[in-house]
């Protein structure tokens, strides 16, 4: 296990290297840029200074080496659009709200989704099943940004109960958390319901029933273990996704979070931000995948690492 983990961490380092090279090459070779003559007409010396400040002088090879050696010392350069701040400080500042929002969302939506999914499966065809399933289905088929806008119209514009956006007190959290939860929760409900129904048709469930196991113990003692593997492989990787924020939720509710920067940095060609965000996401995903696989092997003895 330890050897496997070390091997995986080493390969994660290699993956990071590849990704940084890839991103660098794409950024370098894509036509246009933030300091084009057309975008920003500057005198020769000024231009030189600006380009030097942002590490945009020299060949692609020199730039890459400079970037990596700075990055390894914890300096990711200046964001083009927030030149007073270093990238790492900017990210640290805006990530807070996103993480708060994401953690609350995960803590609420994951257990609730799994629980509701199992309840629906247990009572297949009953009113409860139909209600849960219809709700989950409706929430899956309506895009998140429409739900977010609908929530604002109902709860802020009409009923004037909650603020329509912004960041601050706990009242600012309610609508974004609801909007953010509905997506993962309804997907989970539908997925878990399907899986549980599958499992309930399996021989081992019949055996458990045949040997006289009480019905209410079958799911916690037998079925749940078998749900864990697909649960981890399918929904484990969505955790970092949630924690890096949703641009739709953050723009609709005007939350100063990381999700917005994921999009704006790319649209604005804010290369230092793009680079840093790509690497951060890559690290988080790499670690999530490693944890996923380790759990995988722990939970299913048939899987060898």
């Amino acid at each position, binding site marked *: 296990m330890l050897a496997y983990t070390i091997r995986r961490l080493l*390969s*994660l380092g*290699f*993956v*990071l290297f*590849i*990704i940084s090279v*890839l991103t660098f090459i*794409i950024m370098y070779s*894509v036509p246009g840029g933030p300091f084009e003559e057309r975008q920003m007409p500057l005198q020769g010396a000024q231009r030189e200074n600006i380009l030097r400040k942002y590490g945009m002088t020299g060949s692609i090879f020199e730039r890459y080496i400079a970037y990596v050696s700075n990055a390894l010392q914890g300096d990711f350069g200046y964001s083009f659009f927030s030149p007073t701040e270093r990238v790492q400080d900017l990210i640290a500042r805006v990530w807070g709200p996103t993480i708060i929002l994401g953690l609350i969302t995960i803590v609420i939506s994951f257990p609730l989704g799994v629980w509701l999914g199992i309840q629906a499966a247990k009572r297949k065809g009953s009113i409860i099943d139909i209600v849960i399933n219809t709700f989950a*289905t*409706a929430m*899956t*088929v*309506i*895009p998140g*940004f*429409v739900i977010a*806008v609908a929530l604002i*119209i109902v709860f802020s*514009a009409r009923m004037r109960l909650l603020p329509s956006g912004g960041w601050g007190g706990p009242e600012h959290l309610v609508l974004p958390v609801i909007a953010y939860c509905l997506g993962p929760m309804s997907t989970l409900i*539908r997925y878990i319901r*399907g899986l549980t129904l*599958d499992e309930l*048709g*399996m*021989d081992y469930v019949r055996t458990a029933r045949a040997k006289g196991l009480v019905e209410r113990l079958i799911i916690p003692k037998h079925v749940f273990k078998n749900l864990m*593997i697909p649960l981890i*492989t399918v929904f484990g*990787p969505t955790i970092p996704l949630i924690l*890096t924020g949703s*641009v*739709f939720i953050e723009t609709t509710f005007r939350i100063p979070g990381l999700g917005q920067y*994921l*999009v704006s940095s*790319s*649209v604005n*060609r804010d290369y230092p931000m*793009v680079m840093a*965000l*790509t690497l951060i*996401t*890559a690290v988080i*995903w*790499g670690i999530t*995948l490693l944890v996923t696989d380790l759990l995988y092997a722990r939970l*299913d003895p*048939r*899987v*060898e690492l």
Partner: protein
Amino acid sequence: MASTASASNAPTPSVLSLVKPTSTFGAVWRRLKHNKPAAVSAIIVILLMLVAMFAPVLAPYGYDQSIIQDAGQFPNAKHLLGTDLLGRDLLSRLIYATRSSILVAFAVQLSALLVGVPFGFLAGLKRGLIENALNMVVMIFTALPGFLFSLFLLTAFGAGISQLIFALAVTTWIGYARIMRAEVLRLRNRDFVIASQALGADLWHISVRHLLPNALTALIIAIALGIPGTIYAEAGLSFLGLGIRDPIPSWGKMISDGIPTLRLFWHLIVFPLLSLSITTLSFMFLADALRDALDPSNIRR
């Protein structure tokens, strides 16, 4: 495709021997036929494809034909679903939007499948050097933040249908690769695979007769959910202004264009939203029905 899934060759218990023997495909079809939501969904999906194909014939107006004195009308006799603020007939735009949304979704899923499935299959099956190399590629692409990468590609290469398909496919295929790899890892040490190996079956036989059919259920569900998923991704990119280029409509673009005026002109958002939702529902019901029909342990029904 469906014919490989259930255990038609298994020795049948006495109850089943009373039933007229049919092919596996026949059995799956029989189960599907009796599932009303699935039958309706199948019809809807077929209709959608016909609408997408014959959009120019069906649409009463052009998608960018602006009749300015009719601007902002609610549904009426002349414009069945009303018009938008530029006086464009909503029904016609919806019909053309079906075309672009369906086209993008199918093209993205197909290209993602063609790359992802063989890839994930090999990554799960092979050991040693090949496994490590393939897993490395899986890791790199999984670690690349998907939506960010799509955005980046679109801002780099510009908006447009083919760029959109490319940008979405690049980030979609890895999902299929991962599902396929997980399925093969799950199945590879099962008794029936080992037994088959012990009986001298070669890799091809094991793959085609045991691994692929058993992975099919997961894959079919993923496809049926992936198609609306792509429609949503396109809708999201449209919301950010990076989807299909004006004036060509898509459902997602019509919805996000309607959001600012939602409280006044509800029809601008309701009809595209309904199209999107009904389409998604149809694919979801189809996925459910296929899952039930393909599941050999569901023999009771």
